[in-house]
Protein backbone atom coordinates (compact mmCIF):
# COMPACT_ATOMS: atom_id res chain seq x y z
CA UNK A 1 0.00 0.00 0.00
CA UNK A 2 1.31 3.43 -0.98
CA UNK A 3 -0.29 6.14 1.14
CA UNK A 4 0.57 9.27 -0.79
CA UNK A 5 -0.14 10.91 -4.11
CA UNK A 6 2.07 10.51 -7.17
CA UNK A 7 3.66 13.77 -8.45
CA UNK A 8 1.26 13.99 -11.42
CA UNK A 9 -1.73 13.64 -9.07
CA UNK A 10 -0.39 16.37 -6.78
CA UNK A 11 0.11 18.63 -9.79
CA UNK A 12 -3.45 18.01 -10.96
CA UNK A 13 -4.68 18.91 -7.48
CA UNK A 14 -2.60 22.11 -7.39
CA UNK A 15 -3.76 23.13 -10.86
CA UNK A 16 -7.39 22.54 -9.94
CA UNK A 17 -7.01 24.48 -6.68
CA UNK A 18 -5.54 27.47 -8.56
CA UNK A 19 -8.22 27.34 -11.25
CA UNK A 20 -11.02 27.13 -8.67
CA UNK A 21 -9.56 30.02 -6.67
CA UNK A 22 -9.35 32.09 -9.82
CA UNK A 23 -12.74 31.32 -11.31
CA UNK A 24 -15.10 30.12 -8.61
CA UNK A 25 -14.04 31.54 -5.26
CA UNK A 26 -16.92 33.83 -4.33
CA UNK A 27 -19.39 33.22 -1.51
CA UNK A 28 -22.56 33.35 -3.67
CA UNK A 29 -23.25 33.39 -7.41
CA UNK A 30 -24.24 36.73 -8.88
CA UNK A 31 -28.03 37.13 -9.27
CA UNK A 32 -29.20 34.73 -11.98
CA UNK A 33 -25.63 33.59 -12.50
CA UNK A 34 -25.92 29.93 -11.52
CA UNK A 35 -25.95 28.66 -15.12
CA UNK A 36 -22.77 30.62 -15.83
CA UNK A 37 -21.04 29.18 -12.76
CA UNK A 38 -22.23 25.71 -13.78
CA UNK A 39 -20.60 26.17 -17.18
CA UNK A 40 -17.35 27.30 -15.51
CA UNK A 41 -17.47 24.08 -13.46
CA UNK A 42 -18.05 22.16 -16.69
CA UNK A 43 -15.05 23.80 -18.33
CA UNK A 44 -12.89 22.82 -15.37
CA UNK A 45 -14.15 19.25 -15.74
CA UNK A 46 -15.70 19.29 -12.27
CA UNK A 47 -19.14 18.04 -13.34
CA UNK A 48 -18.09 14.70 -14.78
CA UNK A 49 -14.72 13.84 -13.28
CA UNK A 50 -15.56 10.15 -12.98
CA UNK A 51 -17.86 9.87 -16.01
CA UNK A 52 -16.24 7.83 -18.81
CA UNK A 53 -14.33 9.93 -21.35
CA UNK A 54 -16.46 8.64 -24.24
CA UNK A 55 -19.52 10.15 -22.51
CA UNK A 56 -17.85 13.55 -22.14
CA UNK A 57 -16.36 13.06 -18.68
CA UNK A 58 -12.88 12.85 -17.24
CA UNK A 59 -12.79 9.06 -16.90
CA UNK A 60 -11.15 9.27 -13.49
CA UNK A 61 -11.11 6.77 -10.66
CA UNK A 62 -13.08 7.49 -7.48
CA UNK A 63 -9.84 8.29 -5.69
CA UNK A 64 -8.66 10.83 -8.29
CA UNK A 65 -12.17 12.26 -8.46
CA UNK A 66 -12.28 12.76 -4.70
CA UNK A 67 -8.86 14.41 -4.77
CA UNK A 68 -10.07 17.03 -7.25
CA UNK A 69 -13.37 17.58 -5.42
CA UNK A 70 -11.21 18.16 -2.35
CA UNK A 71 -9.39 20.94 -4.26
CA UNK A 72 -12.78 22.36 -5.26
CA UNK A 73 -13.99 22.39 -1.64
CA UNK A 74 -10.79 23.99 -0.44
CA UNK A 75 -10.61 26.67 -3.10
CA UNK A 76 -14.28 27.66 -3.34
CA UNK A 77 -15.92 29.49 -0.44
CA UNK A 78 -19.34 28.70 -1.90
CA UNK A 79 -19.95 25.28 -0.34
CA UNK A 80 -23.49 25.37 -1.75
CA UNK A 81 -21.99 25.29 -5.25
CA UNK A 82 -19.60 22.46 -4.35
CA UNK A 83 -22.52 20.50 -2.91
CA UNK A 84 -24.92 21.23 -5.79
CA UNK A 85 -22.45 20.21 -8.49
CA UNK A 86 -21.41 17.11 -6.55
CA UNK A 87 -25.02 15.99 -6.05
CA UNK A 88 -25.46 16.50 -9.80
CA UNK A 89 -22.41 14.38 -10.54
CA UNK A 90 -22.54 11.57 -7.97
CA UNK A 91 -26.29 11.04 -7.52
CA UNK A 92 -27.24 11.68 -11.16
CA UNK A 93 -24.43 11.51 -13.74
CA UNK A 94 -22.89 8.45 -12.02
CA UNK A 95 -26.04 6.26 -12.11
CA UNK A 96 -26.86 7.46 -15.63
CA UNK A 97 -23.38 6.53 -16.84
CA UNK A 98 -23.44 3.18 -15.03
CA UNK A 99 -27.01 2.10 -15.80
CA UNK A 100 -28.61 4.02 -18.69
CA UNK A 101 -28.93 2.62 -22.18
CA UNK A 102 -26.81 4.03 -25.02
CA UNK A 103 -29.38 6.51 -26.30
CA UNK A 104 -29.95 8.16 -22.91
CA UNK A 105 -26.24 8.19 -22.09
CA UNK A 106 -25.32 9.78 -25.40
CA UNK A 107 -28.05 12.40 -25.17
CA UNK A 108 -27.62 13.43 -21.54
CA UNK A 109 -24.11 12.79 -20.29
CA UNK A 110 -22.14 15.21 -22.49
CA UNK A 111 -24.57 18.00 -21.51
CA UNK A 112 -24.36 17.02 -17.82
CA UNK A 113 -20.56 17.06 -17.99
CA UNK A 114 -20.10 20.34 -19.88
CA UNK A 115 -22.56 22.24 -17.68
CA UNK A 116 -25.38 22.74 -20.21
CA UNK A 117 -27.71 20.62 -18.05
CA UNK A 118 -28.32 20.56 -14.31
CA UNK A 119 -29.49 17.34 -12.65
CA UNK A 120 -31.40 16.54 -9.46
CA UNK A 121 -31.76 13.30 -7.55
CA UNK A 122 -35.29 12.79 -6.22
CA UNK A 123 -35.52 9.92 -3.75
CA UNK A 124 -36.78 11.29 -0.39
CA UNK A 125 -40.51 11.40 0.28
CA UNK A 126 -42.37 12.99 3.18
CA UNK A 127 -42.95 9.54 4.76
CA UNK A 128 -39.82 7.90 3.38
CA UNK A 129 -36.71 9.74 4.58
CA UNK A 130 -34.24 7.43 6.31
CA UNK A 131 -36.56 4.49 5.64
CA UNK A 132 -36.70 4.26 1.88
CA UNK A 133 -38.72 1.04 2.09
CA UNK A 134 -41.72 3.26 2.98
CA UNK A 135 -41.62 4.79 -0.52
CA UNK A 136 -45.05 5.42 -2.01
CA UNK A 137 -44.21 6.71 -5.52
CA UNK A 138 -45.35 4.15 -8.09
CA UNK A 139 -44.39 3.41 -11.67
CA UNK A 140 -46.64 1.22 -13.78
CA UNK A 141 -45.60 -0.29 -17.08
CA UNK A 142 -47.88 0.90 -19.87
CA UNK A 143 -47.03 -0.14 -23.41
CA UNK A 144 -43.65 1.23 -24.36
CA UNK A 145 -43.30 3.35 -21.25
CA UNK A 146 -43.95 3.79 -17.54
CA UNK A 147 -46.43 6.05 -15.80
CA UNK A 148 -45.02 7.64 -12.62
CA UNK A 149 -47.16 8.94 -9.76
CA UNK A 150 -45.94 10.34 -6.47
CA UNK A 151 -44.25 13.24 -4.74
CA UNK A 152 -40.60 13.54 -3.79
CA UNK A 153 -40.31 15.93 -0.88
CA UNK A 154 -36.68 17.00 -1.22
CA UNK A 155 -34.44 17.15 -4.25
CA UNK A 156 -31.35 19.35 -4.34
CA UNK A 157 -31.09 21.36 -7.59
CA UNK A 158 -34.73 20.54 -8.45
CA UNK A 159 -35.93 24.10 -9.15
CA UNK A 160 -33.13 24.53 -11.70
CA UNK A 161 -32.86 21.00 -13.01
CA UNK A 162 -33.19 19.84 -16.60
CA UNK A 163 -32.87 16.16 -15.69
CA UNK A 164 -34.18 14.18 -12.71
CA UNK A 165 -33.05 10.79 -11.50
CA UNK A 166 -35.90 9.35 -9.48
CA UNK A 167 -37.10 6.14 -7.89
CA UNK A 168 -40.53 4.50 -7.79
CA UNK A 169 -42.03 1.15 -6.80
CA UNK A 170 -42.67 -1.14 -9.76
CA UNK A 171 -43.27 -4.33 -7.75
CA UNK A 172 -45.24 -3.68 -4.53
CA UNK A 173 -44.75 -7.30 -3.45
CA UNK A 174 -40.97 -6.94 -3.28
CA UNK A 175 -40.55 -4.33 -0.55
CA UNK A 176 -37.61 -2.01 -1.02
CA UNK A 177 -36.16 -4.29 -3.68
CA UNK A 178 -39.27 -3.68 -5.84
CA UNK A 179 -38.03 -0.17 -6.62
CA UNK A 180 -36.89 0.95 -10.06
CA UNK A 181 -34.88 4.00 -11.12
CA UNK A 182 -35.86 6.40 -13.89
CA UNK A 183 -34.58 9.44 -15.70
CA UNK A 184 -37.22 12.14 -16.22
CA UNK A 185 -36.54 15.19 -18.31
CA UNK A 186 -37.91 18.68 -17.65
CA UNK A 187 -40.86 19.42 -19.85
CA UNK A 188 -42.28 15.91 -19.53
CA UNK A 189 -46.07 16.18 -19.09
CA UNK A 190 -47.07 15.48 -15.48
CA UNK A 191 -43.76 16.62 -13.95
CA UNK A 192 -43.84 19.71 -11.73
CA UNK A 193 -41.40 21.23 -9.26
CA UNK A 194 -42.01 23.40 -6.19
CA UNK A 195 -39.44 25.55 -4.45
CA UNK A 196 -36.88 26.76 -3.86
CA UNK A 197 -37.11 26.04 -0.13
CA UNK A 198 -35.80 28.59 2.30
CA UNK A 199 -32.91 26.75 3.99
CA UNK A 200 -30.39 27.54 6.69
CA UNK A 201 -27.33 27.00 4.47
CA UNK A 202 -25.97 25.72 1.15
CA UNK A 203 -27.61 28.80 -0.38
CA UNK A 204 -26.44 28.30 -3.96
CA UNK A 205 -28.05 24.88 -4.08
CA UNK A 206 -31.75 25.43 -4.72
CA UNK A 207 -33.87 22.60 -3.33
CA UNK A 208 -37.50 21.76 -3.92
CA UNK A 209 -40.09 19.05 -4.13
CA UNK A 210 -40.91 17.15 -7.31
CA UNK A 211 -44.36 15.89 -8.26
CA UNK A 212 -45.20 13.21 -10.78
CA UNK A 213 -48.85 13.15 -11.84
CA UNK A 214 -49.51 10.46 -14.39
CA UNK A 215 -46.07 11.32 -15.71
CA UNK A 216 -45.25 9.15 -18.70
CA UNK A 217 -41.64 8.33 -19.48
CA UNK A 218 -40.37 6.10 -22.29
CA UNK A 219 -39.11 2.65 -21.31
CA UNK A 220 -35.60 3.64 -22.39
CA UNK A 221 -35.55 6.06 -19.42
CA UNK A 222 -35.55 3.12 -17.00
CA UNK A 223 -32.08 2.83 -15.43
CA UNK A 224 -30.83 -0.73 -15.26
CA UNK A 225 -33.55 -3.29 -14.97
CA UNK A 226 -36.90 -3.25 -13.24
CA UNK A 227 -36.31 -3.85 -9.52
CA UNK A 228 -32.72 -2.68 -9.68
CA UNK A 229 -33.52 0.75 -8.21
CA UNK A 230 -32.35 -0.08 -4.72
CA UNK A 231 -28.97 -1.35 -5.95
CA UNK A 232 -28.63 1.72 -8.19
CA UNK A 233 -29.40 4.00 -5.25
CA UNK A 234 -26.86 2.20 -3.06
CA UNK A 235 -24.29 2.53 -5.86
CA UNK A 236 -24.99 6.30 -6.09
CA UNK A 237 -24.81 6.65 -2.32
CA UNK A 238 -21.47 4.82 -2.20
CA UNK A 239 -20.09 7.39 -4.68
CA UNK A 240 -21.79 10.32 -2.99
CA UNK A 241 -20.73 9.34 0.54
CA UNK A 242 -17.16 8.97 -0.64
CA UNK A 243 -16.61 11.64 -3.30
CA UNK A 244 -19.11 14.41 -2.46
CA UNK A 245 -17.77 14.56 1.07
CA UNK A 246 -14.27 15.21 -0.27
CA UNK A 247 -15.54 18.77 -0.72
CA UNK A 248 -15.94 18.96 3.06
CA UNK A 249 -12.39 17.65 3.51
CA UNK A 250 -11.21 20.56 1.37
CA UNK A 251 -13.38 22.91 3.42
CA UNK A 252 -11.67 21.66 6.60
CA UNK A 253 -8.24 22.28 5.04
CA UNK A 254 -9.29 25.88 4.38
CA UNK A 255 -10.62 26.34 7.91
CA UNK A 256 -7.47 24.88 9.43
CA UNK A 257 -5.27 27.25 7.43
CA UNK A 258 -7.34 30.20 8.58
CA UNK A 259 -7.27 29.09 12.22
CA UNK A 260 -3.50 28.57 12.20
CA UNK A 261 -2.94 32.00 10.64
CA UNK A 262 -5.32 33.68 13.08
CA UNK A 263 -3.86 31.97 16.15
CA UNK A 264 -0.38 33.08 15.13
CA UNK A 265 -1.42 36.65 14.53
CA UNK A 266 -4.00 37.49 17.20
CA UNK A 267 -2.43 38.68 20.47
CA UNK A 268 -4.00 38.75 23.93
CA UNK A 269 -2.34 39.09 27.35
CA UNK A 270 0.76 40.17 25.45
CA UNK A 271 1.12 36.86 23.64
CA UNK A 272 -0.08 35.18 20.46
CA UNK A 273 -3.20 33.19 21.26
CA UNK A 274 -1.37 30.21 19.66
CA UNK A 275 0.82 30.27 22.77
CA UNK A 276 -2.15 29.26 24.89
CA UNK A 277 -2.29 25.51 24.89
CA UNK A 278 -6.10 25.55 24.97
CA UNK A 279 -6.01 27.19 21.55
CA UNK A 280 -3.11 25.29 19.97
CA UNK A 281 -4.45 21.93 21.15
CA UNK A 282 -7.89 22.73 19.79
CA UNK A 283 -6.21 23.31 16.42
CA UNK A 284 -4.19 20.10 16.82
CA UNK A 285 -7.46 18.22 17.36
CA UNK A 286 -8.91 19.84 14.23
CA UNK A 287 -5.91 18.52 12.31
CA UNK A 288 -6.29 15.05 13.84
CA UNK A 289 -9.97 14.77 12.93
CA UNK A 290 -9.30 16.12 9.44
CA UNK A 291 -6.52 13.63 8.66
CA UNK A 292 -8.40 10.66 10.12
CA UNK A 293 -11.51 11.54 8.10
CA UNK A 294 -9.42 12.08 4.96
CA UNK A 295 -7.83 8.64 5.26
CA UNK A 296 -11.21 6.95 5.72
CA UNK A 297 -12.48 8.79 2.66
CA UNK A 298 -9.49 7.75 0.55
CA UNK A 299 -9.93 4.15 1.65
CA UNK A 300 -13.62 4.19 0.75
CA UNK A 301 -12.66 5.50 -2.72
CA UNK A 302 -9.83 2.98 -3.06
CA UNK A 303 -12.25 0.13 -2.37
CA UNK A 304 -14.87 1.62 -4.67
CA UNK A 305 -12.30 1.59 -7.47
CA UNK A 306 -11.51 -2.06 -6.80
CA UNK A 307 -15.19 -3.01 -6.61
CA UNK A 308 -14.60 -4.10 -3.02
CA UNK A 309 -16.56 -1.38 -1.23
CA UNK A 310 -18.91 -2.49 1.51
CA UNK A 311 -21.67 -0.21 2.84
CA UNK A 312 -19.56 0.13 5.98
CA UNK A 313 -16.64 1.73 4.10
CA UNK A 314 -18.54 4.72 2.78
CA UNK A 315 -20.53 4.93 6.04
CA UNK A 316 -17.33 5.24 8.09
CA UNK A 317 -15.99 7.86 5.72
CA UNK A 318 -19.22 9.88 5.50
CA UNK A 319 -19.71 9.83 9.25
CA UNK A 320 -16.13 10.85 10.03
CA UNK A 321 -16.05 13.67 7.47
CA UNK A 322 -19.45 15.19 8.29
CA UNK A 323 -18.98 15.08 12.07
CA UNK A 324 -15.43 16.49 11.75
CA UNK A 325 -16.65 19.28 9.44
CA UNK A 326 -19.30 20.46 11.90
CA UNK A 327 -16.83 20.28 14.78
CA UNK A 328 -14.22 22.17 12.72
CA UNK A 329 -16.71 24.97 12.05
CA UNK A 330 -17.57 25.21 15.76
CA UNK A 331 -13.85 25.19 16.63
CA UNK A 332 -13.09 27.93 14.10
CA UNK A 333 -15.83 30.16 15.55
CA UNK A 334 -14.36 29.67 19.02
CA UNK A 335 -10.81 30.44 17.88
CA UNK A 336 -11.89 33.60 16.07
CA UNK A 337 -13.88 34.81 19.09
CA UNK A 338 -16.47 37.53 18.50
CA UNK A 339 -15.22 38.32 15.02
CA UNK A 340 -15.97 34.73 13.98
CA UNK A 341 -19.59 35.42 14.86
CA UNK A 342 -19.74 38.26 12.32
CA UNK A 343 -21.28 37.36 8.98
CA UNK A 344 -18.54 39.37 7.21
CA UNK A 345 -15.86 36.94 8.49
CA UNK A 346 -17.41 34.10 6.50
CA UNK A 347 -17.25 31.55 9.31
CA UNK A 348 -20.86 31.35 10.50
CA UNK A 349 -21.85 30.34 6.97
CA UNK A 350 -19.36 27.46 7.16
CA UNK A 351 -21.21 26.12 10.19
CA UNK A 352 -24.58 26.52 8.44
CA UNK A 353 -23.20 24.73 5.37
CA UNK A 354 -21.62 21.94 7.42
CA UNK A 355 -24.61 20.97 9.58
CA UNK A 356 -26.67 19.44 6.72
CA UNK A 357 -23.76 17.11 5.93
CA UNK A 358 -24.96 15.13 8.97
CA UNK A 359 -28.39 14.79 7.33
CA UNK A 360 -28.13 14.24 3.59
CA UNK A 361 -26.83 11.03 1.99
CA UNK A 362 -28.15 9.25 5.10
CA UNK A 363 -28.06 10.82 8.55
CA UNK A 364 -25.25 10.24 11.04
CA UNK A 365 -27.53 7.86 12.92
CA UNK A 366 -28.11 5.82 9.77
CA UNK A 367 -24.34 5.67 9.14
CA UNK A 368 -23.89 4.35 12.70
CA UNK A 369 -26.56 1.76 11.95
CA UNK A 370 -24.82 0.69 8.72
CA UNK A 371 -21.53 0.31 10.57
CA UNK A 372 -23.16 -1.64 13.40
CA UNK A 373 -25.05 -3.91 10.97
CA UNK A 374 -21.86 -4.45 8.98
CA UNK A 375 -20.31 -5.72 12.22
CA UNK A 376 -23.17 -8.18 12.58
CA UNK A 377 -24.71 -6.30 15.53
Amino acid at each position, binding site marked *: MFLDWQPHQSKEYDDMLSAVRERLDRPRPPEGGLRELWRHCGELGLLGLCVPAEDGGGGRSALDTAHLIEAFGRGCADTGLVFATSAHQFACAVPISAYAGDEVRRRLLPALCDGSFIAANAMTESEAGSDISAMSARAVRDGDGYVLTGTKSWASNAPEADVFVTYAVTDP*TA*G*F*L*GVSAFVVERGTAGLSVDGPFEKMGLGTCAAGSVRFEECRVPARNLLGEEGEGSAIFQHSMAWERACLFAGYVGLMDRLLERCVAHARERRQFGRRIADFQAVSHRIADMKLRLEAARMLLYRACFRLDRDEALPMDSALSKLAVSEAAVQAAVDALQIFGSRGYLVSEGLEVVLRDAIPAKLFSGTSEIQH*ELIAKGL*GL
Partner: protein
Amino acid sequence: MELAAVIEEIDGYIRKEFLEGDASVELTPSSPLLEWGILNSMNTTRLAAFVSERYDVTVSPKAMRTDNFRTIENVAHMVLELRDRPEA
Protein backbone atom coordinates in the same frame (compact mmCIF):
# COMPACT_ATOMS: atom_id res chain seq x y z
CA MET B 1 -22.32 -27.22 2.00
CA GLU B 2 -25.70 -28.43 0.73
CA LEU B 3 -28.63 -26.20 -0.13
CA ALA B 4 -30.75 -27.65 2.70
CA ALA B 5 -28.10 -26.83 5.29
CA VAL B 6 -27.73 -23.25 4.04
CA ILE B 7 -31.50 -22.81 4.10
CA GLU B 8 -31.61 -24.06 7.67
CA GLU B 9 -28.90 -21.66 8.83
CA ILE B 10 -30.46 -18.64 7.13
CA ASP B 11 -33.85 -19.61 8.55
CA GLY B 12 -32.30 -19.77 12.01
CA TYR B 13 -30.60 -16.40 11.57
CA ILE B 14 -33.82 -14.69 10.44
CA ARG B 15 -35.87 -16.19 13.27
CA LYS B 16 -33.33 -15.15 15.89
CA GLU B 17 -32.31 -11.74 14.57
CA PHE B 18 -35.39 -10.35 12.85
CA LEU B 19 -38.31 -12.21 14.41
CA GLU B 20 -36.71 -12.30 17.84
CA GLY B 21 -37.88 -15.85 18.36
CA ASP B 22 -41.55 -14.99 17.64
CA ALA B 23 -42.89 -18.49 16.93
CA SER B 24 -46.23 -17.17 15.67
CA VAL B 25 -44.70 -16.20 12.30
CA GLU B 26 -45.09 -19.18 9.98
CA LEU B 27 -41.77 -18.87 8.23
CA THR B 28 -40.99 -21.37 5.49
CA PRO B 29 -38.18 -21.44 2.89
CA SER B 30 -40.60 -19.89 0.38
CA SER B 31 -42.16 -17.19 2.60
CA PRO B 32 -42.06 -13.78 0.87
CA LEU B 33 -39.50 -11.99 3.07
CA LEU B 34 -39.69 -8.70 1.21
CA GLU B 35 -43.45 -8.58 0.87
CA TRP B 36 -43.91 -9.36 4.58
CA GLY B 37 -41.49 -6.58 5.46
CA ILE B 38 -39.12 -8.96 7.28
CA LEU B 39 -36.40 -7.71 4.96
CA ASN B 40 -36.33 -3.91 4.95
CA SER B 41 -33.23 -2.07 3.78
CA MET B 42 -31.44 -2.36 7.15
CA ASN B 43 -32.23 -6.05 7.68
CA THR B 44 -31.16 -6.87 4.15
CA THR B 45 -27.81 -5.19 4.83
CA ARG B 46 -27.50 -7.28 8.01
CA LEU B 47 -28.44 -10.49 6.23
CA ALA B 48 -25.96 -9.71 3.44
CA ALA B 49 -23.23 -9.11 6.07
CA PHE B 50 -24.15 -12.39 7.79
CA VAL B 51 -23.97 -14.55 4.65
CA SER B 52 -20.79 -12.76 3.50
CA GLU B 53 -19.02 -13.68 6.70
CA ARG B 54 -20.56 -17.09 7.26
CA TYR B 55 -20.03 -18.40 3.71
CA ASP B 56 -17.05 -16.24 2.69
CA VAL B 57 -18.80 -14.65 -0.28
CA THR B 58 -19.10 -11.02 -1.44
CA VAL B 59 -22.64 -9.74 -1.90
CA SER B 60 -22.06 -6.81 -4.25
CA PRO B 61 -24.60 -3.99 -4.70
CA LYS B 62 -25.48 -5.64 -8.03
CA ALA B 63 -26.55 -8.77 -6.17
CA MET B 64 -29.07 -6.81 -4.07
CA ARG B 65 -31.93 -7.88 -6.31
CA THR B 66 -35.44 -9.15 -5.70
CA ASP B 67 -34.70 -12.56 -7.17
CA ASN B 68 -31.86 -13.00 -4.65
CA PHE B 69 -33.78 -11.91 -1.54
CA ARG B 70 -37.46 -12.69 -2.11
CA THR B 71 -37.36 -15.92 -0.07
CA ILE B 72 -34.96 -17.90 2.12
CA GLU B 73 -34.55 -20.33 -0.77
CA ASN B 74 -33.53 -17.47 -3.07
CA VAL B 75 -30.93 -16.23 -0.56
CA ALA B 76 -29.52 -19.75 -0.20
CA HIS B 77 -29.30 -20.19 -3.98
CA MET B 78 -27.50 -16.84 -4.26
CA VAL B 79 -24.99 -17.91 -1.59
CA LEU B 80 -24.19 -21.17 -3.35
CA GLU B 81 -23.93 -19.43 -6.71
CA LEU B 82 -21.63 -16.71 -5.33
CA ARG B 83 -19.47 -19.38 -3.75
CA ASP B 84 -19.12 -21.27 -7.02
CA ARG B 85 -18.97 -18.20 -9.28
CA PRO B 86 -17.93 -15.14 -7.21
CA GLU B 87 -18.68 -12.74 -10.10
CA ALA B 88 -22.35 -13.89 -10.34
